[in-house]
């Protein structure tokens, strides 16, 4: 029986146990007239359900975690001597074949005798493992059900038991977010350390050429050292910054003016339609922007440049930056809008009362008051621009050169992560591992920007609350 069907069975059992517990508690209540039950029937039902299912579920979890490993080791130990001593990839291939045979996937005619024997053995082990697991779970479930069934008494504090379990569940769910962060940091730091065992950190952080070459060979072989390329971060970082800068140059003025107009000037009706329409821009998938940049904006900019006598490549920092700027407009405008509306009305009234025009009030009173919040919004937008992937993958031209010319093709950190991990590189080669070093760099940069932005925005909120 597969784990999924076991889980489904457990759920069904839980539903039954719930009913059983409810019926029993009502029975107990009629047996003991005059005594008040501590909890409601649903709580007794829930308690019985939990007792029936939780222990069995834990066993299932532990089993699913360890059993495949144990079976593999046992099968490996049973292999003929010349195969049992294989290591690394060789062993992995052998075991893959055997487990495919055991799962009836393999073509039996091509299999050697010893493989068939091992597969048969593996099948047997798997079979007994599931039998054992099912038996164990059945025992635990029925024991839990029976024990909790007879525990139902008027004074049993069933509600407290159930609520405690629910609360533990809630806490577990809220730690998932923390675990994700821990997972991100640990996995990336781990792989980055492996990368730094090939390449000196200083060569990575301060290198000015990016030319990782290509590697399909395994780790630690002599051939690898000869084919090692240069992994300089700076060209990628400069490309990233260039694209993000162009995006901000496009998005900040537009986004700010949109926010100002919509919050200060626009009639309510216009605002109510224009605001959601502009925010549509934020919901469009980035791959769509990438395609738009590639087939429409890029050629347009090239033609436009030709008119002015400039050579603009169709896929360039400018193309990617402009389109990314469009994507960020609603991001800046809605954040700024929130902040501007938070500026107290009294400040505006004071300025207007002294005879300043509306624009003077906005420029000299409202904006200075909202400045910290706007800076926070811009920082958040910058972090998004730096971490954006699909637009630059399609439209930045993927040429890792150290250049400040926006009309040239560039490459960014995110593009390179995609290139290095989706190519045919061996996963353990520095060519692949560098993706994690780049990812960690990206994570740290965006984290710093986010934290700064959050602190600034929070400070600003406190000021007016």
């Amino acid at each position: 029986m597969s784990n999924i069907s076991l889980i489904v069975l457990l759920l069904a059992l839980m539903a039954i146990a719930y009913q059983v517990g409810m019926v029993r508690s009502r029975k107990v209540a009629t047996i003991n007239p005059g005594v008040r039950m501590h909890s409601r029937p649903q709580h007794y039902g829930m308690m019985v359900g939990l007792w029936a299912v939780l222990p069995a579920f834990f066993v299932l979890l532990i089993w699913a975690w360890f059993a495949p490993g144990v079976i593999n080791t046992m099968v490996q130990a049973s292999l003929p001597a010349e195969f049992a001593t294989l290591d690394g990839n060789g062993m992995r291939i052998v075991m893959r074949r055997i487990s495919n045979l055991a799962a009836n996937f393999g073509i039996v005619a091509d299999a050697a005798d010893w493989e068939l024997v091992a597969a048969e053995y593996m099948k047997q082990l798997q079979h007994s493992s599931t039998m054992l697991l099912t038996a164990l779970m059945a025992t635990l479930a029925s024991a839990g059900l029976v024990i909790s069934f007879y525990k139902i008494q008027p004074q049993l504090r069933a509600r407290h038991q159930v609520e405690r379990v629910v609360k533990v569940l809630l806490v577990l769910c809220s730690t998932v977010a923390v675990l994700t962060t821990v997972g991100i940091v640990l996995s990336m730091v781990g792989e980055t350390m492996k990368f730094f065992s090939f390449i000196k950190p200083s060569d990575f952080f301060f290198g000015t050429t990016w030319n990782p070459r290509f590697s399909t060979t395994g780790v630690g072989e002599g051939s690898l050292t000869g084919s090692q390329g240069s992994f300089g971060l700076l060209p990628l970082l400069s490309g990233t910054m260039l694209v993000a800068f162009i995006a901000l140059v496009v998005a900040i003025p537009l986004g700010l003016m949109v926010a100002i107009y919509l919050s200060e000037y626009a009639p309510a009706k216009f605002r109510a339609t224009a605001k959601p329409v502009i925010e549509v821009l934020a919901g469009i998938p980035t791959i769509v922007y990438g395609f738009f940049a590639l087939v429409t904006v890029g050629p347009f900019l090239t033609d436009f440049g030709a008119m002015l006598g400039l050579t603009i490549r169709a896929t360039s920092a400018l193309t990617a930056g402009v389109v990314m700027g469009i994507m960020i407009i609603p991001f800046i405008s809605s954040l700024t809008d929130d902040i501007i509306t938070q500026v107290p009305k009294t400040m505006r009234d004071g300025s207007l009362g002294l005879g300043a025009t509306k624009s003077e009030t906005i420029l000299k009173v409202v904006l200075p008051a909202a400045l910290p919040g706007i800076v926070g919004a811009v920082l958040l937008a910058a972090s998004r621009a730096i971490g954006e992937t699909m637009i630059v993958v399609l439209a930045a031209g993927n040429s890792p050169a150290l250049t400040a010319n926006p009309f040239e093709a560039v490459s960014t950190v995110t593009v390179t992560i995609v290139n290095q991990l989706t190519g045919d590189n061996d996963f353990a080669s520095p060519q692949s591992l560098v993706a994690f070093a780049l990812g960690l760099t990206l994570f740290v940069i965006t984290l710093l920007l986010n934290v700064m932005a959050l602190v600034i925005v929070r400070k600003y909120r406190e000021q007016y609350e």
Partner: protein
Amino acid sequence: MKVAEPLIKPVITAGTVQQKVTASLGRRHRKERVFKGFGLAAVLASLALVLILFVNIFSKGLPAFWQSAITLDIYFDPQVVKISEKPVQAANESDNAFRQRDIEWQTEVGFINFNRLITDSLEKVLPDATQHRRDLQRLVTSGERFALRDMVVQDTSIIGQTRTLHLLTDANIDVWLKGNIDRSLPDTMQQLSPKMREWVQQLSEQGLIQNRFSFALFMNADSRSSLASAGLAGAFMGSLYMMLVVIILAVPMGVAAAIYLEEFAPKNRFTDFVEVNINNLAAVPSIVFGLLGASVFIGWFNLPMSAPIVGGLVLSLMTLPTVIIATRSTLKAIPPSIRQAALGLGASKMQAIFHHVLPLAIPGILTGAILGVAQALGEAAPLLLIGMKSFVAAVPGSPFDQSTALPVQIFLWQGNELRNFFEARTSAAIIVLLALMISLNALAIWLRKKYEKRW
């Protein structure tokens, strides 16, 4: 305030102040108008950008929903389709043995030259083409012969009969007919030989080639050998499985986490830490989640590459903060009096929240969850890193099968060498993706409008 400063200089008398102000009024009002104009211009520019984006994509993509097809009377000639009897499971036969026989039979059917059926019937409508059967065969996209095979496999009684079918033309013919290639280009730069162009001309004059609604786009998986029949079904199912995983994992988990943080968590260091964490996680670039998926789910847990289950897990982690933040703000908006009333009547805290607060919060939670799912649906970058970029020619049957996703399919199609054909096809895929996202968003807005309560 700064503006007021010059006004209160004591040296100037009231009269001169008034003169100065009046003199400057024109300039100041002009400035005001210019500023307001800039604001309006910015808004209009942004609206125009939305419009340009949509018009651009739709004008490119809509034609691709119709595709040129040749109407042919296909005669399933028993001379060509020579196959043994379709196997029937005998009473004493095991399932496996039957399956083996069935597969052998299907392989036999696969060896039949279905192209001959197509060329035979093409010959009837193009009499001058008898000497160029090889070219003739290229009029119909190569995937259609498998469609014919499937028809035979499904129902062998079709042999000996004639069916009128609409067979998709080759992608290049579609491009030619839609005018997506410059017809004045010299022969050496054309994809179609002059002879084939002439045939296409004849066929369209006879009304045999027509633009028909492209079911292939929706029913087929991706294809590289038969470009005209490449479809979105595989990517769609992949996305669907991933969204299911997100709905099953991210939504309940996010809601539970939000309930704990908003209602139960004591104010201490740990809760603060969790909060900061969630806010940060919401702003981490999506590609970083892809790296996490590549190293943790595939590297440590040995989950299959390219499988929707892994994609779903990665997207779940990515959507989790969105759901948590949305749920928390909904919970925050529910007035404390509701909780107090429940508590006052003797409910436990858990009862107060699950029986009274949560039902009131459900519309808000649903809205947040739907927006989170829509965001996950459009995400491509993390999926590239967990192998969903690979070409998959089958519709996945389970979340553990290899598959791709809608946004990744867009990425793959935009890179296809046959740009003339796939630019439209990609735009069509984008339209499908946008339509899905817009309906999700509309659903969220409708829910909010319908159930929104102001306290």
